[in-house]
């Protein structure tokens, strides 16, 4: 163990003394995140795909035939005018709608309660009814769109109820003018605690309670940049296996009474520690410079360690296929770039379209990015279990094949 740590410390120290490498590992991701965050104005700007919505209209309707306020909401959500932003399907029950969100086939479920029409058309101004929005916590933009549309419809209903309530209140005062009715309706509508509070949207999440803190665009971008540049940071250290082989220090290590396994393990630890340090520095810098709320500390630690494992494993796998440091650089750059493009490091994970979202599931960085998004929304360890376990599986597989290949090479 002492020898493993000696090898790891030697490599870590060399990396910390290598200014170009430090710029690549630390300055570049921070700079790019700042630049892109500024370009998107800190609030968005991505070209988004239609949000998949499932509607469960449980509304039993009103006393009179044709009275169904829930159907009106459903009609709006499925209207052609909104087809660019909403891809709406229907479900027969609340459970079916929630299940659709849970299994990822929809991002938002709109569940209209059975008493909705009776409250809207009812005569009791104090009656309340709640339309439930059950949304995937990572569907940041899509959730907001659905919430906005449903909220607007409910506001319209509330306005109508207020107008009706105002008219009823004035009926007994005798023949008011239209303008007086309108004024009273407006007063009722805006009155705190009045009927306007009767129809509300409630939001729920399958895993994460909606946090009051919005995820900043800079935070999402820096998470993507951090993972992307962790790949390069890991590659930089892993490449020393090839440079040492070329420069003769690796063969010399093999002439010492130090086992091959110990030497390779030392290299692995060096790669892992380097990207871990890189991630910690970037996380702290992101907090201090951009005021990014990364999430709960246990979740941040878990995601950071898993990300370091993925970056380290992948870097070692890449160099196990290369014969020279230059070859490793070329192969690695290609692999990391393709993974970043597929995984969403440059585009984020929210609302990226069905096919893209599907492809992201095949990349460790795609899962990690979802994990960071959940973490920044206040998710706990249980909420990111798959976003941690799947990349961890990738990391273990990468390490396994890298070790297998290197054992053959340095046997």
């Amino acid at each position, binding site marked *: 163990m002492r020898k493993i740590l*000696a090898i790891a410390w030697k490599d870590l120290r060399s990396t910390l003394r290598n200014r170009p490498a430090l710029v690549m590992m630390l300055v570049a991701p921070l700079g790019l995140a700042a630049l892109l965050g500024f370009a998107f104005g800190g609030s968005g700007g991505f070209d988004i795909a239609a949000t998949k919505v499932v509607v469960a209209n449980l509304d039993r309707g009103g006393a009179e035939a044709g009275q169904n306020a829930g159907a009106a909401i459903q009609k709006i959500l499925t209207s052609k005018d909104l087809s660019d932003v909403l891809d709406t399907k229907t479900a027969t029950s609340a459970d079916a709608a929630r299940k659709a969100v849970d299994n990822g086939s929809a991002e938002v479920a709109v569940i209209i309660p059975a008493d909705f029409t009776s409250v809207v058309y009812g005569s009791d101004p104090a009656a309340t009814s709640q339309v439930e929005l059950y949304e995937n916590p990572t569907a940041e933009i899509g959730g907001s769109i659905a919430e906005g549309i449903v909220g607007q419809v409910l506001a319209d209903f509330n306005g109508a109820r207020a107008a009706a309530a105002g008219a009823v209140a004035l009926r007994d005062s005798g023949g008011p003018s239209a303008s007086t009715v309108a004024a009273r309706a407006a007063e009722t509508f805006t009155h705190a605690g009045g009927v306007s509070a009767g129809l509300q949207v409630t939001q729920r999440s399958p895993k994460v309670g909606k946090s009051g803190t919005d995820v900043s665009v800079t935070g999402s971008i820096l998470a993507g940049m951090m993972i992307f540049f962790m790949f390069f940071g890991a590659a930089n250290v892993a490449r020393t296996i090839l440079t040492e082989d070329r420069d003769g220090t690796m063969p010399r290590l093999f002439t010492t009474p*130090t*086992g091959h396994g110990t030497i390779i393990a030392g290299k692995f630890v060096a790669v892992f520690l380097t990207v871990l340090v890189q991630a910690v520095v970037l996380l702290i810098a992101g907090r201090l410079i951009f005021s990014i709320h990364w999430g709960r500390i246990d979740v941040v630690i878990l995601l950071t360690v898993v990300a370091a494992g993925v970056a380290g494993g992948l870097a070692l796998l890449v160099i196990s296929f290369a014969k020279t440091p230059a070859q490793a650089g070329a192969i690695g750059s290609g692999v990391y770039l393709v993974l970043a493009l597929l995984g969403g490091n440059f585009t984020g994970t929210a609302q990226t379209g069905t096919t893209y979202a599907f492809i992201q599931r095949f990349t460790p960085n795609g899962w990690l990015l979802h994990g960071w998004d959940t973490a920044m929304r206040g998710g706990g360890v249980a909420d990111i279990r798959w976003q941690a376990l799947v990349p961890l599986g990738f990391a273990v597989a990468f390490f396994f094949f890298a070790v297998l290949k290197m054992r053959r090479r340095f046997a």
Partner: protein
Amino acid sequence: MSIVEVNELRKQYDPPKGVVAVDGVSFDIAEGEIFSLLGPNGAGKSTTISMLSCLLHPSGGDAIIAGKSVVSASQAVKETIGVVPQDIALYPDMSARENLVFWGKMYGLSGDVLKQRVDEVLELITLVDRQKDRVDKFSGGMKRRVNIGVALLHRPKVLYLDEPTVGIDPQSRRSILDGILALRDQGMTILYTTHYMAEAQELSDRIGIVDHGKMIAIGTHEELVKIVGEGARVTARVDHYLEGMAERWREVKGVDKVDVEEDEAVLLTDDPNEVLPRLFEAAAAAGSRITEINVTEPNLEMVFLHLTGRALRE
């Protein structure tokens, strides 16, 4: 008593059709002896050292180092040997001291013992004043000294030096050769490879000459030069009538043979010290004046030429 016993060591790359780099080499080295492997580039010297360092697995044969087999007990062998590779194998972005500390740890040293050995080695390689400087700031000779120092940290029983003086200035070379002789005097066994005949001649108690992966001669310097079967070679030029002068020199006592090659006479003799005054006397008696004369003692170059028909430098 032999501390190194090499028996029919063989290495073939990519068998069965690959190059045979070492082909049944056998030799032994006594404790405290400097043994040199002399041969041209590509003769198989470095491959032999690599097998004895447990870096390469032999295709055949075995070597026993301090009682341990390089084939079956490589880890034990590695604890016994120190290896100085042909090229500088150090970390250039680390200081001399940092390099020594790191390599000391790889040899299993730690704590006070490690610190003490690093200090001793820095003294030995005379780099105490520059111990905190990065190795990439060092001259070639200084790097070579650190390169050697690394292999001495754990006090190995046998030290392998693979062409340690390649590409350095004469002063550094002298310093390294003196250091090697000092290590021998302290009782260390040394296996030295070189293609510099003079180095092998100066340092070695015994020399093995290798060519095309085979050991073609082995023995002390004196034993090897006897293989050539001739004495010293004297070449001389005179101011006029070389043919006539050559005839007279054939009559001089102690001269075994005289040939005329272009504008010089080539004489063979077992004792040039006795013969040279007589050559001058004969020339004076004939009214000739010797304008140039050279004496070449039989050397390893001549041995190699004699055995292979090629010059060592080829």
